[in-house]
């Protein structure tokens, strides 16, 4: 099962099992908009439950919020996180706040699905990964699956959760395979960061595509006799740093990886949470972070290659933690 298939299976399970679930968003009747992640769902479940929309991000999202107040569990799909900025009011001011503002009486059980769709020389307005923005907003659960089974099971958990959830997937992961597994209905409230690989030399932390970078880097490091522990965050908000803290207490070394920007981003949050919790004496070296550089996304292929973090960057940061020189040139990732 690959990641795109995981998402599609999640939709299929939800639409089949729960009559109150529906999907709405731009491109749902299109052959290409959301990659292979929703192929023919409109045909399978009808255009009344898989609804394509006008080019109106804000009203579409608001409509999903409204339907969610009235007993439905809509999934509103934004084929690009960049466009979703136009809908931020409904996500941040409405969905995330209604429960609190109404004393727990309103339940906007809406799932907002945002797709990170970058690379391919698409440029600065078609490349953003703004998960850190939304992790900043209390009341909004933020979920970033890194594996195919999480892509499916966290989607299901998001939709079945009574709170608003932002579910973020990344098209660079669509072809990644995980072993087949049966569908499980997880309780999103109980999900959080998870150790995907044990190790004792250095802790690598990521989410979404950054987790994939960490896993690849751990392989490379293993070949070099270095034992990296990989923690996949999975849920960015509310952020529970416990698993990361435990891991760093054990390894004494931390590399936080994120495929978003640095300032006020998730990688910094990981380091801050660890620094607050772990005695300085426990740290064998200064924690490091790997993020996008402080620039909008370029288009030229040469600049794109320089822009996005690679497995090599993660490997080298880990080596630096251990006081080792950078590895010999690796093939460029992704």
């Amino acid at each position, binding site marked *: 099962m690959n990641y795109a298939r995981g998402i599609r299976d999640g939709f299929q399970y939800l639409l089949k099992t729960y009559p109150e679930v529906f999907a709405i968003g731009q491109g749902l009747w299109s052959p290409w908009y959301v990659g292979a992640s929703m192929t023919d769902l409109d045909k399978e479940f009808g255009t009344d439950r898989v609804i394509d929309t*006008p080019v109106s991000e804000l009203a579409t999202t608001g409509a999903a919020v409204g339907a969610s107040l009235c007993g439905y569990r809509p999934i509103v799909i934004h084929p690009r996180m960049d466009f979703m900025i136009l809908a931020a009011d409904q996500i941040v001011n409405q969905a995330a706040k209604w429960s609190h503002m109404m004393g727990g009486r309103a339940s906007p059980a809406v799932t907002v699905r945002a797709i990170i769709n970058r690379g391919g020389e698409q440029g600065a307005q078609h490349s953003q990964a703004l998960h850190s923005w939304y992790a900043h907003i209390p009341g909004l659960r933020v979920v970033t699956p890194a594996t195919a089974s999480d892509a499916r099971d966290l989607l299901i958990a998001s939709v079945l959760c009574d709170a608003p959830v932002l579910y973020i997937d990344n098209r660079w992961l669509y072809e990644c395979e995980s072993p087949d597994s049966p569908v499980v209905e997880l309780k999103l409230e109980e999900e959080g960061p998870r150790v995907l690989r044990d190790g004792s030399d250095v802790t690598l932390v990521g989410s979404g595509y950054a987790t994939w970078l960490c896993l690849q880097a751990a392989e490379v490091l293993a070949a070099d006799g270095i034992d990296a522990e990989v923690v996949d965050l999975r849920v960015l908000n509310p952020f529970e740093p416990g698993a990361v803290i435990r891991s760093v207490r054990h390894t004494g070394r931390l590399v936080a990886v994120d495929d978003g920007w640095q300032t006020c981003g998730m990688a910094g949050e990981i380091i801050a949470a660890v620094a607050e919790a772990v005695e300085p004496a426990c740290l064998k070296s200064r924690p490091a972070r790997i993020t996008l550089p402080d620039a909008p996304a370029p288009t030229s292929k040469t600049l794109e290659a320089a822009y996005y973090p690679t497995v090599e960057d993660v490997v080298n940061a880990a080596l630096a933690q251990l006081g080792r020189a950078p590895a010999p040139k690796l093939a460029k990732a992704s």
Partner: protein
Amino acid sequence: MANPGIWRNEPAAPRAEPETGRPARAPGNAARGAVAMDPPAGNTLGIHDLLARLDSLAEENYFDGPTADATGPARLGALADPRCYRDPLNIAGWGANGLRAMLGGMIAIRETEIALGRLVESGDVVCPVHLAVGQEAIPVGVSHNLDASDRVFGGHRSHGHYLAQGGDLDQLFAEVLGKDAGCSRGMGGSMHLFAPETGFWGSVPIVGATIPVAVGAALAAKMDGKGAVAVAYFGDGAAEEGVLHEALNMASTMKLPVLFVCENNLYASHMDIAQRQPHDSTARFAHAHAVPAMVVDGNDALAVARAAGRLIGESRAGRGPGYLEAVSYRWYGHVGPDENIDVGLRRSAEELAAWKQRDPVMRLGAAMTARGDLTDADIDSMRADAAARAAQAAERALAAPYPEARALFDYVFARRAG
């Protein structure tokens, strides 16, 4: 036309004439004559009137740049003229009981808001309180056609919307005072009301925010298939937010059962509509999106009730959305009980005084006393009762406890009842 005149088959109310020579309609209409202009029938404007007005606007304004002044004459004509529509309402055909309920509803809203204003003045209420005294006929007229299975959404000025749906009075006062007994458990205050048990599904103060939310509630209602409708209340200012247009397009394209109710009180906070829009009637937006619209005197509860009833009836029957523009005026200023007539705005004491003569309560009351449905003394005692109930609710709320500190975290993520 499949059903000519469908919007006109109500008994015509007598039309108050302007006191001055100022014509109730812009002169362009008559002059052109290309559009058949029926004499205004009652105080609801049907689509033909609107198209005629649009046409006259074209004649006068679209092409002659120099005269198309942003601060030019009002296009709502008499509907926006406080010298018109002052007479007692035409209540022929309406039973006394129904009218008494509507009158009582308006009086209850007014007395409640006056009491809230006093709590602001006394300093007991701290949160921003937007009063709609003078606009009571709109929610009472709209809710006349709704029940608890419908889904009503409001904005920053929604006490009346909440009460007209049957929202609890004690819970309203408690909410405005930030008490745990409030309808939103004291977590929202005046601008965040919630009473889904009555069909009032929430108000919030981001201007325009509940418009698409109501469209979503209508989508849910359509999926439910039980004939419920959603209602979005918003103001003439909110009509400047792009989201209204996105919502109108969606509702129109998907044929959703939602009534857009624009309470056009001619002001958005400190700015009158002529400073913000090229035209003073917002129903033109409904037309642009092929949504049936009616424009009514918002100080006539019966006109509102009739028009809303017609549009809601169409929605319940599966024919898609409707748009009701109800023209009114708020007696108080933008926020709190200040009148906003001496703070440097274009709103004047004269304008306010004139609008107080177009009082929606008085006009219904006068018609009922004239017909013998009740006496002036009856009205006085309705008013006194309502004031007493409000005072009592205020007292109870003042004595009630604040939320516990854990409320700060308990409600961040809701769990659904079911």
